[in-house]
């Protein structure tokens, strides 16, 4: 039972990071219908930038402030980067065949990884532990302060995003653009600005997730964005792509499935399948859910594009 509780905690932590990244995927998809394959790389850039910043300011400031400054700088750099990517690689292709921006997104993903390799060298770098590393015991299971931070920050971010989307003018413009760009434009919304704003917000969420990811696992590297990117995309589809709440539900569900699956798959199959098979769990659940509900768990409209 203790293991079960522990795996739930791990799953929630993992899931909330997936959720942050999945939100970026889902917002972009909801508005321009693009699978932004470079999104995981924005997470990677955020994490590496924060690593560099921490290297500079760690001796000067108290640890929590170091983390905060690193987080803010990472978010700003990621936002500027994603804004540029959208302007350069996606906007010119807005009216092209659908697969064209998909290919530029893949190209961008490779390009960012390559540039990161040139700037930061290809080796793994250890990410400093800034919060106390002593785990806190919690009813038989343990949780580290970093994990608590991840859960709290994600919850606050989600609340903030929900307010942004449902309570502000920009949010209304975003929803209107996602519904119908042309009609939104007739109502005085500037679709291009809204799309840029979406990319900026998505990048900040990804950078946030990147810093959390790096703090949790303790290493950063140029290829670190790939797996979270793919998993977050899976989570977004699982929840119903284009749907914000769906991305959160999908992300947390995927995190829980993975960690509980990893904890029990060995026992369940008598040792035939090990925890290496964890990815199969995630994708198998995805296939089952999509077979039963082709538009994802919370998705309403059938994706009739592509």
């Amino acid at each position, binding site marked *: 039972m203790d293991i079960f509780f522990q795996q739930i905690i791990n799953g929630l932590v993992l899931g909330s990071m997936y959720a942050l990244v999945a939100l970026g995927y889902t917002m972009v*998809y909801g508005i*321009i*219908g693009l*699978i932004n394959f470079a999104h995981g790389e924005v997470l990677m850039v955020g994490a590496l930038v924060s690593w560099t910043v921490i290297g500079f300011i760690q001796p000067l400031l108290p640890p929590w402030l170091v983390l905060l400054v690193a987080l803010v700088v990472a978010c700003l750099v990621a936002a500027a980067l994603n804004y540029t990517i959208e302007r350069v*690689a996606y906007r*010119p*292709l*807005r*009216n*092209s*065949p*659908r*697969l*064209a*921006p*998909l*290919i*530029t997104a*893949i*190209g*961008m*993903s*490779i*390009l960012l*990884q*390559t*540039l990161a*390799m*040139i700037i930061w060298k*290809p080796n793994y770098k250890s990410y400093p532990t800034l919060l106390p590393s002593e785990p806190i015991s919690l009813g038989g299971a343990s949780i580290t302060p970093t994990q608590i931070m991840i859960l709290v920050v994600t919850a606050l971010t989600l609340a903030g995003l929900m307010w942004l989307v449902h309570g502000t003018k920009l949010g209304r413009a975003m929803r209107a653009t996602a519904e*119908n760009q*042309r*009609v939104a434009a007739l109502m005085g919304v500037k679709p291009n600005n809204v799309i840029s704003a979406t990319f900026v917000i998505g990048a900040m969420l990804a950078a946030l997730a990147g810093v959390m990811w790096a703090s949790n696992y303790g290493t950063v590297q140029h290829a670190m964005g790939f797996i979270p990117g*793919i998993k977050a*995309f899976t989570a977004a*589809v699982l929840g119903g*792509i284009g749907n914000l709440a769906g991305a959160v539900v999908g992300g947390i569900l995927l995190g829980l499935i993975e960690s509980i699956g990893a904890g029990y798959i060995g026992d369940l199959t008598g*040792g*035939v*399948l*090990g925890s*290496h*098979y964890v*990815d*199969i769990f*995630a*994708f*198998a659940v*995805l*296939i089952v859910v*999509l*077979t039963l509900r*082709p*538009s*994802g768990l919370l998705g309403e409209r*059938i*994706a*009739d*594009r*592509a």
Partner: protein
Amino acid sequence: MNFSQMTTRQRLLGILLAAVGLLVLPILLQGFGSAWVRIADMALLFVLLALGLNIVVGYAGLLDLGFVAFFAVGAYMFGLLASPHLSDSFPAFAAMFPNGVHMPLWVAIPLGAAIAGIFGILLGAPTLKLRGDYLAIVTLGFGEIIRVFMNNLDHPYNITNGPKGISQIDPIHFFGFSLGQRWDFFGYTVTPVVMYYYLFLALVLVSVVICHRLELSRIGRAWMAIREDETAAKAMGINTRNMKLLAFAMGATFGGVSGAMFAAFQGFISPESFSLMESIMIVAMVVLGGIGHLPGVVLGAVLLASLPEMLRYVAGPLQAITDGRLDSSILRQLLIALAMIIIMLLRPRGLWPSPEHGKSRKTAEGKNKASAQGSAA
């Protein structure tokens, strides 16, 4: 560049020149070393793969991001049937085949192709209801599932030998004629890479003919109808379920055959060769060249498969100039990424697009530009 506008004589001349060029190419390349012929061989294998994926994505409009899975299935099937691995790890096989399993070509390749085709149907069946990007993620997941199995099926029963891969795979050989050794023809020595070149070239030509015939057939027309508008296609009496399954199965069969060829050519396979990146590169070949258009697909595959290898040779001097800061593999990747982005920005329909593709969507877009997020794949 428009083929159909040429006169029959010009066309015939073009075909003749291309044929002579393709036949002489390996002999010319051999002059620079076997490595260059190898590049040509791999390029042809990727052309075969891209032709297979083109059936699924280009004709039927089903975005498949896990195509490399079928390549892997074909390669592993051939690898298991033509190497000592099964006999080494299973006493039962050792009893039956004391010298290792060495199935003849006529068993191994059709079996590899058939199993890949079955996997294609297995993938297709649960995804029939899905469209577009939902399909993309499921196929991506399917590819990953296959890769995880390849990586981990080495215990408790050692079937795939895990990350270590399967080695000592037999080369292609038929009627006592093996492509794995040098042969002398009229005093001229032909190396294995050159022989494989001709084998792969023959396979590519056969595939191009098959694809071309498919494109013009009722089946091809049905696929394109599904691609342009599935609901309308269904209303016109097309059995969309069977047609989609057929597209998956046919595409997968191409993948399986090229996988078997790859295994025989390399003599060694491991899960590393079948990563998601490979799938993505195959999609990129099809899209960069000109989706659904055979000459375009061939062009895209040749470019993306051979350019990175050629850049390897250019990269050396550049690396020296930049004091080793730009590693050759990094530079290669950088240039591929830039090529993908720039080509798409300049020619969003691909380098050599089909003159007809997406026509019906275009008119629909004109009427309702607001909701059109660009036309179909």
